[in-house]
């Protein structure tokens, strides 16, 4: 059975006549999550998870035609049963499950398997075909336990405070920023850049409660943030806005920071391997749990991960998509995010 095919516009569901996270404008788009490389502008109709709805409206436009579903609720489109399951990637992120005449295909979108205490945790789903990401699909990527990671970041902030420094974290406004807020909750006042503040508000309208933050703008009093925590989008790295923070120590939060060379390449003080993607073992666990007879590997280390799956007896093909061009998947994003 051929339920999906990979086209120039995106992943296409043949009987359902709709696309999954298409990168060109189409009539009907089922969206896994709100990151810009998955939720693009120009679709006539959007379908996403309830918690992504406000985010998509905020990012793409309030006038889009959009419908949403909770997790594990079916909607039938041209005979195809479509449902969302938690992907654990960011708030509102979903795996898309497609069932047609008893044949099941699951599109993972982006996912992480560990619980970040903020996002609905990832759930494995049995299927015939699984379309998985592979952003960190090499065995060198193994994340620390959440408590250890938190400890490292807390130690850094406390050490900065002892030197009278303000701790500035760089993280994407959707996903990473909220994750950092959660990790830092209760340690100190947290100030956020307006791009993050706006996303937080969109998330709040879905009824999700986030750690308390304060808006930080160019007009804010510098004294207020002294010794505190400030979270800004990575596009601000090296900008005057950061330079204006007196005694700042800066840190990038990204899975790429696992590698020393990546930490040193950026002109920041510290790098923490905080990722919203599955690590090597996470990917393997997730793939195995689906018991899929065919695994398509998309963006990231698709060549290596797919080759490895075949070697351990899981039939796999690599697929070229347009995903992975921003958010966590590049070390530093250079545009697409409105700055200050």
């Amino acid at each position, binding site marked *: 059975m051929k339920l999906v095919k990979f086209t120039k516009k995106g992943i296409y569901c043949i009987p359902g006549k709709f696309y999954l996270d298409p990168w060109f404008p189409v009539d009907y788009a089922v969206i896994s999550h709100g990151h810009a490389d998955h939720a693009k502008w120009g679709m006539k109709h959007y379908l996403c998870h309830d918690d992504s709805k406000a985010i998509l409206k905020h990012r793409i436009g309030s006038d889009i035609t959009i419908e949403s579903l909770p997790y594990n609720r079916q909607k039938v489109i041209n005979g195809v049963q479509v449902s969302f399951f938690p992907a654990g990637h960011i708030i509102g992120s979903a795996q898309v499950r497609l069932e047609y005449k008893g044949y099941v295909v699951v599109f993972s979108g982006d996912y992480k398997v560990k619980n970040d205490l903020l996002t609905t945790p990832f759930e494995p789903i049995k299927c015939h075909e699984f379309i998985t990401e592979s952003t960190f699909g*090499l*065995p*060198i*990527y*193994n994340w620390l336990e959440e408590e250890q990671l938190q400890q490292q970041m807390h130690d*850094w902030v406390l050490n900065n405070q002892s030197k009278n420094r303000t701790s500035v974290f760089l993280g994407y406004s959707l996903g990473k920023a909220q994750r950092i807020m959660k990790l830092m909750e209760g340690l100190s006042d947290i100030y956020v850049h307006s791009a993050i503040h706006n996303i937080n508000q969109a998330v709040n309208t879905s009824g999700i409660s986030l750690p308390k933050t304060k808006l930080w703008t160019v007009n804010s009093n510098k004294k207020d943030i002294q010794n505190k925590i400030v979270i800004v989008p990575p596009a601000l790295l090296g900008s005057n806005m950061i330079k204006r923070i007196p005694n700042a*120590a800066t840190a990038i939060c990204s899975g*790429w920071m*696992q*590698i*020393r*060379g*990546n*930490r*040193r*390449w*950026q*002109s*920041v*003080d*510290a790098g923490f391997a905080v990722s919203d993607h599955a690590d090597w073992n996470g990917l393997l666990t997730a793939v195995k749990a689906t018991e899929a007879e065919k695994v398509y590997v998309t963006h990231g*280390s698709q*060549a*290596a991960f797919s*080759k*490895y799956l075949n*070697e351990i007896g899981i039939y796999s093909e690599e697929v070229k998509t347009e995903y992975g*061009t921003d958010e966590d998947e*590049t*070390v*530093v994003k*250079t545009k697409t995010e409105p700055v200050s």
Partner: protein
Amino acid sequence: MKHFSKLISDIEITNKTNDKIAALVSYFSSAIDKDKLWLIAIFTGKRPRRPVKTSLMKQWCIEISNIPEWLFLESYSTVGDLGETIALLLPKPTHKIDKSFSKWMEDIIAVRTKSDEEKMQFIKNAWSGLDTQERLIFNKLIGGSFRIGVSKKTLVNALAKYSNIEANQLMHSIIGNWNINEISFSQLLRGEHINYDNSKPYPFCLAYALEKELDELGDINDWQIEYKWDGIRGQIVKRNSEIFIWSRGEELVTTQFPELVTAVSKLEGDFVIDGEILALKENSILLFNDLQKRLNRKNITKKVLEEVPIGFYAYDLIEWNNKDVREQALSYRRDLLEQLFSAQKDNKVLSISETIKVNTWKELSPLRDNARLKDSEGLMLKQKNSPYHTGRKKGDWWKWKVDPLTIDAVLIYAQKGSGRRSAHYTDYTFAVKKDDGLVTVAKAYSGLTNEEILEVSRFVKKNAIEKFGPVRTVKPELVFEIAFEGIALSKRHKSGVALRFPRISRWRKDKPVEEIDTIESVKQLIYSPN
């Protein structure tokens, strides 16, 4: 190791030099003597010989982590560092080994003479008893270079802050001959094994780029004019039969240039001279890349000595028979320098930087334009009555560099960098047109901003032909302007030409690949006086 590992963490988590120095000072204030000595030893390249082959370490890591070899290699090409790749691939530790840093070093030395079986036991046990960061440190102590965020200079500055001893003296002390078992930390710092009075250098006098019209400089006869050489600026100190060579980075590089030491030893008297170390072969100057083969090496092999012979062009004399003559006029110092060199006319290694004699400023311009024919990068203009200043001072010394040559070339291969550049395609090979195809003409590693590197990296990932390994062949599409200091015919290069110091001057997004240079147009740049 815990203490040492903490120090490395503290150093790695900041890019502020003062924080690094503070972390080192705190380590010096609290660590045991032997650990401190080992720290100085490994940060200055005094490491023990590698006890275990890297191929064995790789093999053991593959066994333990249970991955295929190709996946190990793929991981290695992403990380760009073998010790780190292994540290990341190994499973979580099963127990905790707590040994001092110096004890680890002693064990590493001791294992060298053991059997492969015993070596394996030792390494595997260490790996399973250390966390990821400690493993990385351990792997680095075993072999490879130990370069972790601390330059020799930073180390010396931290020692200076800790001990209140002058930095240059400490540089001489730690680089001098000392044995870890025969000296205490404080003896080492006090320099009991050296005579600092013999090695003490002076701060270099530096020039600014010319920012005036030549006419504004006054009478040309008041100026000493020389070619500007692109090598390593160096100061040679000879006192009481001891010879020291300092680089501009205030590092002692004496052992890297043994033929220079021999040549200087033949000169009479005590002196300090300033000049340029150049790679010189059969009277032509080799590429700076060649000269770099002589640096950062503990041992200079015969092969390197033959491949990259060096020479020294003397610019100035700043101490003469133990008398500081920096305040004397340049013309006086030049006389002394000529006097010193007059005794040895046919020395192949040592020569005096020739002065250029012209009567008017007008005559000088073409000489600068054609400086390339001499493998020089321009001219130096020095006021004849100027003292030897400390550092950079405007007005007395000017450098007047020739504009670089440029060509437009297309990117055809890209490779990931190493170390900090390992995440991105940062090392590029460029080609120009030849007949119906392309021929590689230059490699360049610098000139793009980090953002441009990301953009090129994305293009490479999308358009690469190979999927595995470090090198990617890409569709010839991105055009760059390559700037370089000189060009010569070369039999070693497929294109038939060698470019001197090529780098990317800009990304020609406006230029289609059809409009890049041809190898003929590139060759026309050779020997064409402007």
